[in-house]
């Protein structure tokens, strides 16, 4: 039997992706860059979902066929697609009105 990969390796990679995405979302000036950071965070969360699907015991309940992790990941991917579409449409719309995509220029509501 080959030595297998421990679960926490996957979780560590997921945490690294999440953290990098968080840094990008917090530190980027460009709104598209912020969106990219958010996509990275979603990917990190998705790796966790799939890793848990593979490794963690499923309570043997009625009618469960144990694909929850993958179903969850698919839902997240679909939501990420929707989020990207709406987010980028917003960014393009703002760019048309204000000629800028830098988030610090969008602070007119601060008063």
């Amino acid at each position, binding site marked *: *039997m*080959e*030595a*297998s*990969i421990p*679960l*926490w*390796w996957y*979780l*560590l*990679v997921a*945490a*690294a*992706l*999440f*953290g990098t*995405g*968080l*840094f*990008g979302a*917090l*530190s980027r*000036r*460009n709104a*598209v*860059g912020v969106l*990219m*950071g958010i*996509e*990275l965070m979603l*990917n990190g969360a998705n*790796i966790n979902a*799939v*890793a848990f*699907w*593979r490794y*963690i*015991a499923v309570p043997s309940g009625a*009618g469960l*066929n*144990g*694909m929850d992790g*993958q*179903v969850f*990941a698919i*839902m997240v*991917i*679909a*939501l*990420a*697609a*929707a*989020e*990207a*579409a*709406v987010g980028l*449409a917003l960014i393009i*719309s703002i*760019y048309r009105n204000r000629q800028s995509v830098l*988030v610090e220029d969008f602070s007119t509501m601060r008063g």
Partner: protein
Amino acid sequence: MMEMLAFGLVAGVAVGGAIGVVAARNVFVSALWLVLSFIGVAGIYAILGADFLAATQVLIYVGAISVLILFAVMLTHHVMGDERSNNRQAFLAFIVSSSVVAALGVLAYRTDWPIRPADAGGSVVTAMRGDLAGSSAASTAAQTGASTALTSTVDLALNQDSNVVRLGQALMTEHLLSFEIISLVLLVALIGAIVIARD
């Protein structure tokens, strides 16, 4: 050992791509790093045995979301220029995010996860071995008697993609409601994006 090598490769691609995303000065280049990171994540799904999800990841993230992002970069950005890419809170953000990574890593390592007992220790490998055994049986059956053993080959072919079949069944039975809701969300997002981007 070899499996770990494969894992190291795809994990390196995923994390390296992510670091490239936040380190690149140009937004377009950073989007290209993002694509690399997505491909690495697809590789991680593949090693975890979620084949369908890996292909979906490539199809949706690389083929659609990255394209959207690159289009947005091209439509909004001064396409050719470099500029200062991080804001003033970058240092603070670095501290916050690295402490999040450290906390999550320690938690992941220290927690006593309830690993599935049936194939503890070698879950991926045993599951993979099962798949491969099915496949080799199918191919030998296909070789030996094309006309006689065909029904069994087809049965085996159906067993091979049981993971995909099970995922489809899960989406159409216990997760049907969320499936419908996600379809509705996608429709609303589609219409919303068109309306916002048009005027």
